[in-house]
């Protein structure tokens, strides 16, 4: 048995300069944002902020210049992402388009389609959502029923998607649909399409979550026409394409930093010479956080070198989600004195928001059980 590769990453030496540029931009832009809104992290939607961020060249950073990108390295992009998340910047509007839809389009679409979408994404003006889950298909993704039928010049799509992050505030959706009926190989006959959510036959409804937010929604597709060139990649290769997309989705710093603002709020709320129990709790959180960051950076380095660390990425996503989920519970359990009774401090508002938000962290992008199944397969157990 070989250990899973986690070679330490050595950052490019101009990274400190980039960090300070990002920090000075964020200091200004986030000055008036409340602690609880910072806690929303990559679930915080703010189109104006996305456009300003694009103005700095920090969306589509690694894409070619003629497609609106900036030809930066993947590691420089990683640094900007982690700085945004650590500061609690409201990045949700463009996050998915920048992280995976754009990259996916670049890999699988024609130059014309790339020109249509990538520059608009890089300007912070066009937002994407990912249509995977359906009313009867969650973890068992291959069982989806939304289907596309060939017609002259394109496809007619019928079906429904649900639990789609910011469906109602996105312009486009990349959806996985069935293009040939289910056969013996469950993973065959699936394809990906770029669907314009303003097209005829598309209905999008937000779904209110249990704390009154609208971060996900449902999409009904009723005889929606999609032109041929909006088929992404190869007909029938959807399963493999989705899996390569999930590797991008599973490996970023957002997989361990979603609750990070609470740790900052805790540090700001306690005295330097606080009691031993609080000190030890801070030590324990730091050990997990530092280790996850090292793991996440190692994967970023491997991706930048063209390797495929998908098993390692599944491990980091699962460990990271457990960390993000446990953090609010650990903080709540350990708050002392007046801190735990207050309701109106940044710390308590952040804690309250995150206690309710964290169950999603081990559902989105692959459930804990699915990820552990993937890891078990990597260990040779399946």
């Amino acid at each position, binding site marked *: 048995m070989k*250990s*899973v590769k*986690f070679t330490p990453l050595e950052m490019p030496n101009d990274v400190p300069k980039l960090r300070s540029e990002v920090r000075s931009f964020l200091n200004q832009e986030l000055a008036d944002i409340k602690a609880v809104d910072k806690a929303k992290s990559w679930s915080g939607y703010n189109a104006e902020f996305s456009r300003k961020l694009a103005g700095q060249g920090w969306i589509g950073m690694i894409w070619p210049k003629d497609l609106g990108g900036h030809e930066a390295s993947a590691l420089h992009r990683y640094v900007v992402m*982690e700085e945004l998340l650590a500061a609690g910047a409201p990045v949700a509007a463009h996050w998915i388009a920048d992280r995976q839809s754009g990259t996916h389009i670049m890999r699988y679409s024609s130059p014309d389609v790339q020109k249509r979408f990538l520059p608009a994404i890089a300007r912070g003006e066009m937002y994407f959502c990912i249509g995977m889950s359906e009313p009867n298909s969650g973890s068992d993704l291959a069982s989806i029923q939304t289907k596309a039928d060939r017609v002259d010049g394109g496809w007619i799509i019928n079906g429904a998607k649900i639990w789609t992050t910011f469906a109602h505030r996105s312009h486009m959706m990349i959806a996985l649909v069935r293009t040939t009926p289910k056969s013996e190989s469950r993973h065959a006959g699936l394809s990906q399409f770029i669907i314009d959510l303003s097209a005829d036959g598309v209905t999008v409804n937000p779904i209110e979550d249990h704390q009154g937010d609208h971060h996900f929604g449902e999409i009904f597709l009723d005889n929606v026409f999609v032109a041929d060139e909006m088929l992404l990649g190869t007909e029938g290769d959807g399963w493999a394409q989705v899996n390569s997309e999930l590797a991008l989705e599973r490996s970023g710093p957002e997989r361990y930093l979603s609750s990070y603002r609470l740790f*900052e709020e805790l540090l700001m709320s306690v005295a330097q010479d606080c009691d031993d129990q609080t000190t030890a709790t801070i030590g324990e959180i730091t*050990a997990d956080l530092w280790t996850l960051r090292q*793991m996440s950076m190692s994967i970023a380095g491997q991706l930048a070198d063209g390797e495929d660390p998908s098993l390692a990425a599944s491990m980091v996503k699962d460990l990271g989600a457990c960390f993000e989920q446990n953090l609010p519970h650990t903080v709540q359990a350990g708050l002392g004195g007046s801190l735990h009774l207050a309701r109106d401090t940044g710390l308590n508002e952040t804690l309250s928001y995150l206690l309710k938000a964290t169950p999603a962290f081990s559902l989105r992008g692959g459930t804990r059980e699915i990820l552990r199944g993937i890891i078990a397969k990597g260990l040779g*157990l399946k």
Partner: protein
Amino acid sequence: MTPQQLLLQETVDNVFGELVAKLNSRQQPLDFDSAWLTLQDLGIDNLFVAEEEGGFSGSWQDARIVFYLAGRHGLALPICETIVAKKILLDLQLPIPEGPLTFGLSTPEASLSNDKATGGKIFSGNLLAVPWGRNTNAVVTFCHGATTDSVVLLQCSGAQVSGGRVNDAGEPRDNMQFHDASVLGVAALPNASEKLLRMGALMRASQMSGALDSALQLSIEHVSNREQFGRPLAKFQAIQQQLAIFAEEAAAVNCASQAACDAEDHGDSLFEVAATKLRSNRAVGITTSIAHQVHGAIGLTKEYDLHLYTQRLWSWRSEFGNDRYWSKNLGQQVLAVKDEGFWNYMTARSDRISKL
């Protein structure tokens, strides 16, 4: 890994594997002195010694490979302790004695004084749970002083060793009493105890990574071969999910120890080592209970090798700082920088490890 590191890994892996087989032989187990000679012939104890002086000019990244493999094989010899003891002596330009060496922590009343007869320094004090104290020639320890702390090198034969103390894996952990013992070397070093503890923690965490991988490998092999209800245990989701958790923990410890060795190679690394030893300690409870649970009763037998790794993991969790020690230490480090910004601090620390 560099080509040299791959060669180091392959060579040491083979030698450790053969040695452990001989040491654990039921017919005629190899004795300590003969086993040590094999390591000395390989020269691996001189990992940090300069090439022109017969060593490897190794880094902590190189040392981690050896520590990992010592843990991976459950090697019951003080090779890691000797490598680190020599590193401490090299850093302070102190003489390096022959043979196996060790290092350990002294109790607060330890003292250095001048020997009126010879004009040299003499040491009195107790060293607690010194790894392999009875088997080693010399021990590196520290002594608090009025103005500064010192690192002290002592001949083990000058100590009274109180009988037969071992850790939970049966490795010697000797309490050594020194009374007016002449020192082989002494050098002033602020925070000497911190340095010994930090290097010991980094060494143990790297060994823990190896022991975790071996316990994981045994667990995977066992559940793949053992059948119940007409199929291998490996085919049950309940087992798969448990071993996935184990693999994640092993990966976390592996990654942390590599990154901390990288940091130690770049200078000050107390932050990274504290995080690494604490993270590694916290992995022990989770992983050893999974390993034993999936093994069933066979895992508790003397004959089966799982205890070579689980017993060491339980022992090493306590050595060179348990969870309580490092969580408080790391928490204090974080609180000390919180006003300048913890995120800025953590990122600046990793940014200093950069490439052109």
